[in-house]
């Protein structure tokens, strides 16, 4: 008299049991894939990027640029004020220091001027590393 649809004879209500299981499985799969999608979306939002390339041209260009600018400023001051060669010498030294600073900064040894000043305020942005350059051959 108390007939449960789950333990009834196969054929009629038996197939509904299969349907039920199938539906449950499909629901589970749907739930999983929805979850994966959401996770992927979140991961994409805070995806970090770091390149494994570290190269000499980067260091060289950083250093040379500092020296060139220093020399250029010194030369310009000498030219304008007629103090040759003292400004050139002084600014070449400063340029050398700036070049070293550039290199240290690009290697992440010394904090960026901006980053150092920003320390107090909450950082909402992440600075990508500056290691991307020529790949190691």
């Amino acid at each position, binding site marked *: 008299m108390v007939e449960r649809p789950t333990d009834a004879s196969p054929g009629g209500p038996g197939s509904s049991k299969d349907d039920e299981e199938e539906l449950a499985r499909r629901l589970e799969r749907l739930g999983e894939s929805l979850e994966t999608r959401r996770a992927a979306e979140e991961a994409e939002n805070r995806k970090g990027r770091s390149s494994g390339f570290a190269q000499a041209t980067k260091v060289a260009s*950083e250093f040379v640029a500092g020296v060139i600018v220093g020399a250029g400023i010194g030369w310009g001051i000498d030219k304008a004020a007629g103090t040759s060669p003292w400004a050139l010498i002084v600014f070449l030294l*400063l340029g050398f220091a700036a070049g070293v*600073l550039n290199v240290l*900064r690009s290697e992440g040894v010394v904090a960026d001027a901006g980053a150092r000043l920003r320390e107090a305020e909450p950082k909402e942005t992440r600075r990508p590393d500056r290691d*991307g350059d020529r790949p190691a*051959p």
Partner: protein
Amino acid sequence: MAADKVDPIHQFHITKILPINVGHYDVSFTNSSLFMAMTVIAATAFLILATSGRSMVPNRWQLVAEMSYSFVANTLRDAAGKAGMKFFPMVFSLFMFVLVANLLGMIPYFFTITSHIIVTFCLAMLVISTVVIYGIWKHGFHFFGLFVPSGVPAALVPLVTMIEVISFLSRPISLSVRLFANMLAGHITLKVFAGFVVTLSAAGVAGMAGAVLPLAMAVALTALEFLVAFLQAYVFTVLTCMYLNDAIHPGH
């Protein structure tokens, strides 16, 4: 013609196509100008044609266009935050321009505009001027706080500030020198190895056997140069974003 192939510098020569003179300045339409125009046309045509379908499910080309868009957008957002997105058109233009110029330069007999220091320097100056002008417009005198370090003994402040200023001014130079040097060095190296192949294979069977090694090197270098072409465009973009970040958030 064989001589052209062997001379690794020849590819960087600028030849006039349409001589124009304005006052004292020679502003002729040269092969460099031609390739600048080709870069613009190629990049724009690609981006427009690739997205002509405007399909929900992108095809391969549309995907490439969309990927470059989101790639630059993500890089900029990572480096400079939401406020940096107002510079997105400029950063995207720089990225696409440098990338397409680099890639066009990989085609044999094509001119590489980014192998000329003046081009990369102008692009870098564009970035730095944007940073300085926007920084001063937005933050006024505060912007120069970027150069005054904190936590340094008072006596050293002028010296360190001087060094910081030079370091800041060296940015466009290092930015341009890096791109220029990479493209120049890559193309010279490629040309030299290709020259070896040509010279050796001209010297008979033994030479052809000997040419295998430089040929393999040339192939490997070509692959490497494609990577470098992309990577330099990326580095240029990342550094642009970081400098822009200094203009947007120069600290207190």
